[in-house]
């Protein structure tokens, strides 16, 4: 027990960041599950982070309420944005959401109350590890249950074949929008938690790199199940710590591992278990190679 306590104490920040990254990975997983590639989640994270921090520091709003309001603000902004961008598909949709991310970043650099390039400092460190991990457990459970519901099936159907999905009575636009708004709220929730964990935030934390990182967690972990994004975020966040003995070469190795996973497990780490079965089926010629 002591050893565990010591481990948690030493790696407290990393453990917290892993949980937050897992929440972020799940936020983009929701839209990926519905077959939509969006890269706006870093911006929604920023809205939650700045929202929660500013409400707490300037207006004395209690921490939990700040988190809720940040997520609510993010969802409210996602709604009209989603209505506009879901005219687009695939890479065009991704680019449009990147554009939104840039708009948010520049606004954070120019608005009078966001601290411009310096960002916000001295954010009270109110986030406890159990806040993060309770959120993660609740979110993972809810998403897991949603997968088997009418909504989860509708998302999967849209991902598989949008035209056929419309013919089954699924209001495509509405379901895409719901996924987008839910993802935005979740990313903002994670952002609020991270602001009060790190005690300072700046616009650069929420740029394009961040958006891609979030996507990579989800894709490397695997999008077929809820476990994928959590696994991906955990491994990729812990990897720099694990590779610390390699010193200056560690980023190279982290990159190589990433490439290896994407090449050999294109559907993500969670499919590792399936792989053996598929191999066997392929050997007896029973599986579709595609």
């Amino acid at each position, binding site marked *: 027990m002591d050893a565990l306590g010591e481990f948690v104490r030493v790696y407290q920040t990393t453990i917290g960041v892993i949980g937050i990254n897992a929440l972020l990975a799940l936020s983009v997983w929701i839209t990926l599950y519905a077959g939509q590639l969006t890269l706006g989640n870093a911006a929604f994270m920023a809205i939650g982070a700045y929202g929660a921090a500013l409400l707490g520091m300037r207006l004395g709003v209690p921490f939990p309420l700040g988190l809720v309001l940040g997520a609510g603000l993010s969802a409210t902004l996602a709604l009209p944005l989603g209505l506009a961008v879901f005219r687009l598909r695939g890479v065009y949709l991704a680019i449009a959401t990147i554009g939104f991310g840039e708009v948010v970043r520049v606004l954070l650099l120019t608005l009078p109350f966001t601290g411009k390039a310096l960002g916000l400092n001295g954010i009270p460190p109110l986030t406890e590890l159990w806040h993060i991990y309770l959120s993660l457990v609740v979110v993972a459970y*809810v998403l897991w*249950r*949603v997968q*088997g*519901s*009418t*909504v989860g*099936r*509708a998302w*999967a*159907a849209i*991902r*598989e*074949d949008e*035209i*056929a*999905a*419309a*013919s*089954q*009575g*699924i*209001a*495509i636009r509405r379901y895409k929008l719901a996924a987008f708004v839910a993802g935005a709220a979740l990313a903002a929730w994670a952002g609020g938690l991270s602001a009060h964990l790190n005690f300072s935030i700046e616009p650069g934390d929420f740029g394009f790199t961040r958006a891609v990182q979030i996507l990579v967690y989800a894709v490397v972990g695997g999008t077929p199940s809820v476990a994928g994004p959590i696994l991906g975020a955990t491994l990729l966040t812990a990897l720099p710590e694990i590779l610390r003995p390699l010193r200056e070469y560690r980023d190279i190795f982290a990159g190589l591992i990433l490439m290896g996973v994407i090449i050999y497990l294109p559907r993500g780490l969670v499919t590792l278990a399936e792989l053996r079965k598929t191999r066997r089926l392929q050997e007896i010629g029973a599986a*579709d190679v595609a």
Partner: protein
Amino acid sequence: MLLECDGISKRFGGVHAVAEVDLAVAPGQVFGLIGPNGAGKTTLVNLISGHLRIDAGAIRFAGADVTRLAPHALTARGIARTFQGVRLFKGLTVLENVLVGRHARMRSDVLRRLWPRGAPDRRDRESAGLLLERLGLKRPQALAGELAYGDQRRLEIARALASEPRLLILDEPAAGMNPAESARLRELMRALVAEGLTIVLIEHDVRLVMGTCERVAVLNFGRKIAEGTPVEIQASPIVREAYLGSEDAA
């Protein structure tokens, strides 16, 4: 009339894919739609099912104007369809495909599902299972993409039936089926019509059309060139020239 198309038209650039077509499908009928390749049959279906926007004309279904409705709204009103070439959700299981087909008849169960032991869709799963049985599909947990082609076609019909439609539009359902499967399809259509379903059948297989349809309309170059009973259509010189003639050449 269950379905009435009144002078509906669709252009793609300079091409009149569908030009001022009138159709009237009575309830309980099997209505055949035939014509050579590129005659506009599938475009016409896409207009009726809401996948394409109509340029001119009007569509009425069960007495109500449905001209501008989206596909999902039409499904809710009772129009179901299959696609030329199969469009299944290949990454989902056979059972899931049928459950998605029931979407229009299911209430959202997201909230009830949050309860750990909740299985609010038990009834829907049962009725989906019955549909699979009826269509002779035996592996509900197999991925739809893994099925043989004939099975995929039947699964698509099961999925369409899951929405409890009043009108079922089948776009070349017998393509890729062997004669035995095609005969079973004919049996199924008879049984469905006996239960009160109305079917619009688009088909190349002339024997299937002539053997099942009460009325047949013939399209050529986007226009309806003839309509009547199968016997009248087979006797019509215009149809012979446009369709059956080309069939002989092929």
